[in-house]
């Protein structure tokens, strides 16, 4: 059931109606029921996977917490009798048990994710190597179900388990409530990857009907539909045309394609997240924001603080910090300091941990070398920027350009183009094709075709371009206004007739300008496949 389908709109409308009709203590149960119906309707086989993750993580978290509580009670009871070293040995022993228990459960769940997502990727690579060594024998690919949203809910559930292990949240005792945290349907498909400490505050609460919250939620959903149907799904035709035939559409077309794709990706993904947050808001539930106007960033580092925030912070808290703070990494740091000096010794652990994070980020996005190279390309740019930081500082201090609006605009445009280039790995079918398409931008010499109306050969008419330009201007204007606070709050302060006109106008725009129906494929949100 797609977010942009009539079925989904009906499904959400029924939920909202019943949600505020039933006694409030049953609201979270209704959400659980609807979440499982949503997942069941996608494919009944998916339920096995989500239930396995839910059950294993639920019990492991309870076991870990029980062990931690037992430890506290024991230490309290023997406070006077135990020596300092005995206490430390006991605590270390118990911690080791908890770490191994959590580790096994994480391994199992990552194992499931890896098996369904990466088995065929691995077989493909083994076959490639066999061929390279002159072996005729090839392994057969296997047919596996890839459950919808598995990357998202697995990470969300693992994050919860680590939080319980670290003692930052208490384990949820009610298995059904925990099942809702894992399966909450608006965010099941493409995130955000919520933290238990944040989402649980409002997920299980009783919610009275609040007309403002429902109204704001519906407005946010409408805005999500605008981004998805008016911008993303309309520009999709142009992107598909360009990337499907690199021999015809190279040079300037490849440039246009990468810019179009970058716009499509943002409109599609952030539009989907708007719908998710809007539904949650209408239900009285707070889901964390996943974007903070990323294309306004002035560096790639800043961009990654503002794009897909929940995923980036997940990788930071559960991979980057544990890896860089690990004993092995600290030993490596000491070794590096001793042999190569303080300066390199300080930086190497950061670079090594960041390399692991970007490799993981790449492969998380898909079982494909394109994504791995995309991740590592991001890592390279970030590390080069880090190395050049002192030079930048010197340059800025000398010329005082960083405060000038024109220079800020230049930095923003430069970062946007950099992101466009990196996103090319996501578009083309292989790494080689990506590099070939990128190279043609400098070698094809066909920039003159723009004057001959070349853009009209991409399956988009003048009307399509008109709508796209309008859509992007609206998106840009809203983003600019957002910098000084919530747009909906601002509209909410306007007189009633203006508010009605604005939101009804938005609704009409989606109906009139949205790319849906016959001839359009609004079949997937891009991030559904991750």
């Amino acid at each position, binding site marked *: 059931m797609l977010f942009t389908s009539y079925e989904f709109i009906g499904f959400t409308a029924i939920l909202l109606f019943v949600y505020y009709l039933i006694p409030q203590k049953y609201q979270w149960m209704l959400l659980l029921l609807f979440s499982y119906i949503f997942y069941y309707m996608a494919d009944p086989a998916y339920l096995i996977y989500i239930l396995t993750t839910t059950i294993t993580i639920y019990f492991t978290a309870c076991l870990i917490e029980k062990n931690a509580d037992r430890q506290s009670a024991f230490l309290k009871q023997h406070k006077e009798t135990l020596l300092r070293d005995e206490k430390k040995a006991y605590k270390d022993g118990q911690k080791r048990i908890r770490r191994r228990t959590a580790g096994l459960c994480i391994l199992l769940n990552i194992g499931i994710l890896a098996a369904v997502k990466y088995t065929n990727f691995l077989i493909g690579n083994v076959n490639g190597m066999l061929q390279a060594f002159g072996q005729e024998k090839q392994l057969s690919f296997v047919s596996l179900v890839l459950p919808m949203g598995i990357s998202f809910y697995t990470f969300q559930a693992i994050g919860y388990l680590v939080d319980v*292990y670290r003692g930052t949240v208490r384990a949820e005792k009610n298995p059904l409530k925990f099942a809702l945290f894992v399966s909450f349907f608006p965010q099941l498909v493409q995130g955000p990857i919520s933290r238990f400490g944040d989402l649980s505050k409002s997920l299980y609460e009783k919610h009275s009907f609040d007309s403002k919250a429902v109204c704001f939620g519906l407005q946010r959903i409408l805005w999500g539909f605008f981004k998805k149907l008016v911008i993303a799904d309309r520009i999709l035709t142009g992107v598909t045309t360009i990337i499907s035939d690199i021999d015809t559409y190279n040079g300037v077309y490849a440039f246009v394609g990468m810019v179009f794709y970058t716009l499509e990706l943002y409109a599609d993904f952030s539009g989907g997240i708007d719908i998710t947050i809007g539904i949650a808001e209408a239900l009285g539930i707070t889901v964390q924001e996943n974007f903070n106007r990323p294309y306004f960033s002035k560096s790639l580092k800043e961009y990654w603080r503002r794009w897909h925030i929940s995923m980036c912070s997940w990788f*930071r808290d559960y991979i980057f*910090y*544990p890896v*860089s703070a690990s004993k092995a990494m*600290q030993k490596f740091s000491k070794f590096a300091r001793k042999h190569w000096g303080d300066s390199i010794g300080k930086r190497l652990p950061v670079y090594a941990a*960041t390399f692991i994070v970007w490799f993981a980020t790449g492969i998380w996005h898909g079982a494909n070398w394109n994504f791995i190279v995309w991740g590592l390309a991001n890592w390279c740019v970030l590390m080069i920027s880090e190395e050049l930081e002192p030079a930048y500082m010197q340059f800025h201090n000398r010329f005082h350009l960083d405060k000038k609006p024109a220079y800020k605009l230049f930095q923003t445009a430069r970062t946007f183009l950099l992101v466009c280039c990196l996103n090319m790995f996501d578009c083309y079918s292989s790494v080689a094709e990506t590099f070939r398409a990128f190279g043609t931008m400098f070698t094809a010499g066909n920039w003159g075709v723009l004057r001959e109306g070349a853009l009209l050969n991409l399956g988009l008419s003048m009307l399509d371009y008109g709508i796209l330009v309008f859509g992007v201007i609206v998106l840009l204007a809203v983003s600019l206004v957002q910098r000084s606070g919530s747009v909906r709050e601002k509209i909410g302060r306007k007189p009633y007739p203006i508010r009605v006109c604005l939101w009804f106008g938005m609704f009409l725009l989606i109906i009139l300008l949205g790319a849906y129906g016959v001839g359009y494929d609004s079949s997937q949100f891009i991030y559904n496949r991750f």
Partner: protein
Amino acid sequence: MDKLLQILSELHPDIDFETQDKLIDGMILDSFDIVTLISEISEVFDVTISAEHIIPDNFNSARALYALIQQLEDEE
């Protein structure tokens, strides 16, 4: 405390670490700084800051960070 202040000021010479108490919330220290800090603290104070200690409360000010180091020294 002086040793810690010296480590911090090497990271960001322009910040007054004795008074600043929003190092994380104010986005003065980023994840790269934190990892560099952990490595430096491990070298100078011979304590191990593990991932579970990396929370804003422990890194928002030099004072909070020093309290963490003292706690870890006591434990170790």
